[in-house]
Structure formats: C-alpha cells, structure tokens
C-alpha cells in the first residue's frame, strides 16, 4: 500500500522474490543456450533467441496463470500471488524480445513494411492449418503490453478497479491466442509427441486448476447463501436475513455471505460484529478470507485494510467499501443486505454474554 507514486514499493519479500525470479530466468536461458549449442550446433543465434525467449515466456505464463487458482485452493500460495506483478512484467519483456526478434527475422528487409508484412504475407485467414499464427502472437503481445503498462496501482486507481480488472482478465484471451500461436506455428514443424504433450500438459494444468478452483468457489458460494429468508420473527426489523450463529465466525475472522446477490463479509472481533462488502477495492480480493489486524480488516491478497465499522481505509489511505447493518438476537446473527454508500459508518452489533439480550442495530 502506498499513497504516493512509487514505481516499486520494495519490501524484503519483493527483493527475495525478484532475485529468485531473475535466477530462474537466467538459469533457463543459459541452460537452453548451452543445450542448443551442444545438441544443435547448427542453430543460428536469431533462432536460438527466438526459441529460448518464446518457450520461457510461454512457461512463465503458465506459472502466472496457475498461481491464482492455487491460491484459491490453498491460501499458503498467497506469497506467490502477492508479487505476481513482477513475474508478469518480466514475462512480457521476455515475450516482447521473442516478438521483436521474430519480426526482425521474418519481416524486415523485405519489399513491404515489417508490420504490414506481418499481416499480409500469409493471408490464409480462413484456413485453420495455414492460419497466419504470427498475428495471434502479435495481438497477444498487445494485450500483455497493456497489462504490463497498467500493472502499477497508479493505473488501477485511475482506470478504476472494475475497468482495470476487465483489462487484466484479458490475460485469458492472450493465453488462448498464444496457445493457438504455438499449436498453429512451431508445433506444425515439430514431430515429437513430447513437445505436443508438454503443450497439452500446460493447458491441462491451467484449465484443470481453474476448473477445480471454480468448483471449490461455487461450493463456498453455496455455503455462503443463508438458508433462511426474511426473518419471520416479528421483533426483527424488515429486511434483515438470518446469516449464521455467532459461534460460526472465528474471532477476528469473517464469514462470507451472499444475500440477494450482495457479496458480504461478516466480521467478528471482540464482542462485535460488522459487515462490509466482500470485495476489496484494490483487486477484488475476498475480504471475508482476511483477518482483523490492528483493528482493521486486512485483505488476504495484498494487505489492503479497512475499518470494520465504516468500511474506510485508515488515513492516509482513501479506499472505501460498502457497509451493512448487522444485528444479533441471542446466538443468531442477522444481516440486512441493503448496502450503505461506501465508507458509511454503521455501529457494530454487540454480542452479549447472555443469549437473552437483544440489541437491534438499525435505523
């Protein structure tokens, strides 16, 4: 978190992360080059660069895409997610090297402009087998460029989180194009089933992890929908819905609720209960998987913080989320899914020691 523009907000973790990242990049490129020199001494320098950077960027993209669902399945992978921006930008730069070398190699020094050549040399756009696969790589690179260029939180804030999120979901379109770029390109030259198998294994890993993570999330969403509807008890104000038992929420943690399409994080801290919108303003991280630290809801993805009673980030930060009314009747917790404007203070519901106590926190 930072309130001033800081190109890289270095932390000890980021330092270590980047060193390991660069070590792996160096290891791959050096090993690839050395193996090519030994196994295929006829390879030209340009082809070596194109293949080394292309395969490395493709491998890195797979790792990047696997981190998200892995974190969904096991939150202990979160440290990999926290610094994924550096991984993504590095992958883009390596992919860019691949793209530039390809354009120089295959399209420069000809009778038309290289970028024109990219699209008019092979015009079999209607054929799958002969499809001009290089154009797919070009458009994927454009998407990855936009993502890398806007990866900083400065752009997240200025583009607004929803727009930023949509833009960065473009990575899936880029991945699909890159897979087709590989399958309709170099794989058509290669005969080894090992290379086709590697590509398939990568796709299977990415798609499989996303499917399993989505299935887990779906189960979680189902569990987050309270079984009760509007409370039939007369002394519960109109609009409140039974959410859970007080004991269902661990101390300083939350329960996720989906009530009438409202995604709510219901936090218990001390003897208080507060509800805020479940999605972090930073990157839509699930606040319900966060924790109350120093009196603030702390997002599990990037550590953004909000006060539970008003949904505002502590000064000098300015992020805000919607708040909701909460009430407790004995051991039962009720939430009104009607959201208040972002940052609206709502007094927490108090959990009394005796279940007979009743306190309605509402208008």
């Amino acid at each position, binding site marked *: *978190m930072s309130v001033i523009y800081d190109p890289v907000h270095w*932390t*000890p*973790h980021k330092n270590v992360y980047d060193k*390991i990242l660069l070590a792996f990049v160096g*290891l*791959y490129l050096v*090993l*690839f080059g050395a*193996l090519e020199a030994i*196994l*295929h001494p*006829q*390879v*030209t320098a*340009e*082809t070596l660069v194109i*293949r080394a950077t292309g*395969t490395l960027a493709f*491998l890195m993209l797979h*790792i990047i895409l696997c981190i998200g669902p892995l974190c969904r399945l*096991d*939150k*202990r*992978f*979160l*440290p*990999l997610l*926290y610094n994924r921006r550096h991984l993504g930008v590095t992958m883009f730069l390596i992919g860019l090297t691949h793209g530039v070398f390809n354009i120089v*190699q*295959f*399209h420069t*020094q*000809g*009778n*038309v402009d290289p970028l024109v050549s*990219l699209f008019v*040399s*092979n*015009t*079999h756009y209607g054929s799958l087998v*002969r499809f*001009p*696969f*290089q154009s797919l790589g070009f458009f994927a690179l454009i998407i990855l460029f936009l993502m890398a260029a806007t990866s900083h939180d400065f752009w997240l804030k200025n583009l607004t989180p929803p727009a930023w999120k949509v833009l960065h979901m473009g990575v899936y379109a880029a991945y699909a194009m890159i897979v087709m770029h590989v399958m*309709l*390109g*170099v794989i*058509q*030259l*290669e005969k*080894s089933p090992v*290379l086709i198998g*590697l590509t398939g294994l990568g796709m299977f890993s990415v798609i499989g992890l996303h499917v399993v993570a989505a299935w887990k999330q779906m189960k979680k969403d189902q569990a987050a929908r309270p079984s009760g509807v509007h409370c039939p008890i007369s002394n519960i104000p109109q609009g409140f819905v039974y959410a859970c038992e007080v004991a269902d929420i*661990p101390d300083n*943690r939350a329960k996720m609720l989906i009530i009438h399409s409202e995604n709510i994080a219901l936090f218990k801290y001390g003897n208080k209960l507060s509800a805020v919108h479940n999605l972090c303003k930073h990157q839509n991280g699930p606040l319900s998987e966060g924790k109350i*630290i120093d009196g603030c809801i702390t997002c*599990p993805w*990037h*550590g953004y913080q909000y006060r539970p009673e008003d949904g505002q980030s502590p000064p000098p930060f300015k992020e805000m989320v919607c708040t909701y009314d909460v009430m407790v009747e004995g051991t039962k917790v009720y939430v009104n899914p009607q959201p208040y404007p972002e940052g609206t203070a709502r007094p927490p519901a108090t959990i009394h020691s005796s279940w007979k106590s009743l306190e309605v926190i509402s208008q």
Partner: protein
Amino acid sequence: MQEEFYIGWQTEAPPSFARVVRRSVTGLCVLVPLTAILITYFQTGFSNGTFEFGKKTELEGIFSENPFPFLTIESGKDATGNPVFQKILLVGKGKFGFQKAEGGGWRVEGEPAFAEAMAGKGVKVSGFLIYNDGKTAMEVESIEIQEEAKEFEKPSTVYRPPSTVHRLPSAVQLRGEITDPKCLLGVMNPGQGKPHRDCAVRCLAGGIAPMLKVTGASGETEYYLLAGANGEALNDRLLEYAGDGVQICGRLEQQDDWWVLYADPATIRRVNKGTLNVGVMCN
C-alpha cells in the same frame, strides 16, 4: 490454535506459508531446467545450411541469366579430366533477389544498376556464400564486369553425371515444399515449414527464385528452382503456396549442379505434407 495469516508487506511470512513457498521454489528448480532439456532435446534438428555472413568471398566466373541469375565457376575436374562446373545462384541483400533492372541490366538492391546486359560475360562477384546439400548461393554485395573475361569451356557442354532418380529429362510431376533458396540453404535455420512461411513469401515477393524442396522416401533431398514454361518468373503465382506442400508438373532441365523445373503453374495442387516424400514421376 490461531490460524496463520499472510500479509505481503510484513517482514516475515508465517511458517506454514514460508514452507509452501520453499516447496514451490524447489518444484520450479526441477520444472524450469526440465522444460529446457525436453524442448531442446526433442525439437526437430536443424539443417547443415551455412550462411557466411560477414565473411566476404570474391569469385570470378561467367554470368548467366536464363532463367535465373547464376555465376558459373569451374569447381574442379572429373575422373576423365574434364572440368566440372558449379553454378552459384545469385541473390540480393535482405529478402530481395538479384534483380533485373530496366534496360536489360542487373542490380543489387540499394546499388546503381548495370545498364548493359551481362549474360555470358565474365564477372567478378563479391558477397557472402550460402550453401547446403551441395547447392550454393551468394548474397551479392557487388559485381563488376571484367574487361578481360576468363575463358571457360562452354559450360553447357560439360555436366556432372546424374546421381539421383529425379533426374529425368522428360516431363515430371514433383511433390515438395515451396520455399526460397536463400533461407533454406542457410540464411535461416530452419528456413522452411509453417514458422518460416511469412519469410518465404517476402523472399519470393522480393524476387528470389522460388524453389521446390523434394524429400525422397529415405530422407534424401533434392532442390528444383521453379520457372514458368518459357522461363518467366513464377514468384507471384507461387506466393500463396509458400511453405506448403504442393505437386507440380513441368519439364526438367539440369544446369550444371542445379535443376530447374519449367513448370506449368496450372498444374499446381496442394498436397498433404505427409505425402511429400512420395516422388511421383509422370509424362
């Protein structure tokens, strides 16, 4: 027991998180090198094509232009003592052929054209050699007509004996891949197939002679430069076939160590690349 919680901006990660990260890094220590090993080991090998870029060679010989610009040089003697001639296909810089200029002369891309015709004249050519599978081309840097041309025996009277089954003097149908000789012989490696298609299109569009690479059943290869039935350029007609497997009919002519197929473009058919090694002959 208090559940561990990770915050990226804190200095220490909880032990269980740190343990998973360490295991992930260990996994990457296997995955990253293994990927490099598998890709480099199992990828299709490269040809022995060579491009002597930066190593300038000067050759003297006789220039011919029908149907392609060749420099004919004497490369040695055969068993009977007759001279053996070698033809060097001349190509331009970048993705350009050695080009016919207005007025009948020739020119190197970016250089002033020779106004006078050079066919049959002795020339000194300077450039970078490109060679593979017994075929040689040269990227021409400069060319000059020699006032005192070296006298050769008439090149067309002395040929090396045919050594492959493809060398039939009658009309033939050949199956192979349309490509360009400059890249295929060594400037690019690999200089064929789908990844190279765009480059082959640019080279053919730039005037480099189109070439058919035919692979025999046992893997031997032969190369056929493609011209129209009357020696006219087929480049524009073949652009859409670059990098593809085709079958094509025509009349074969041997020019020293090169084959030229005077092809009928109407007979071109795309064929599955899987059948490229079936060399079909016809009348």
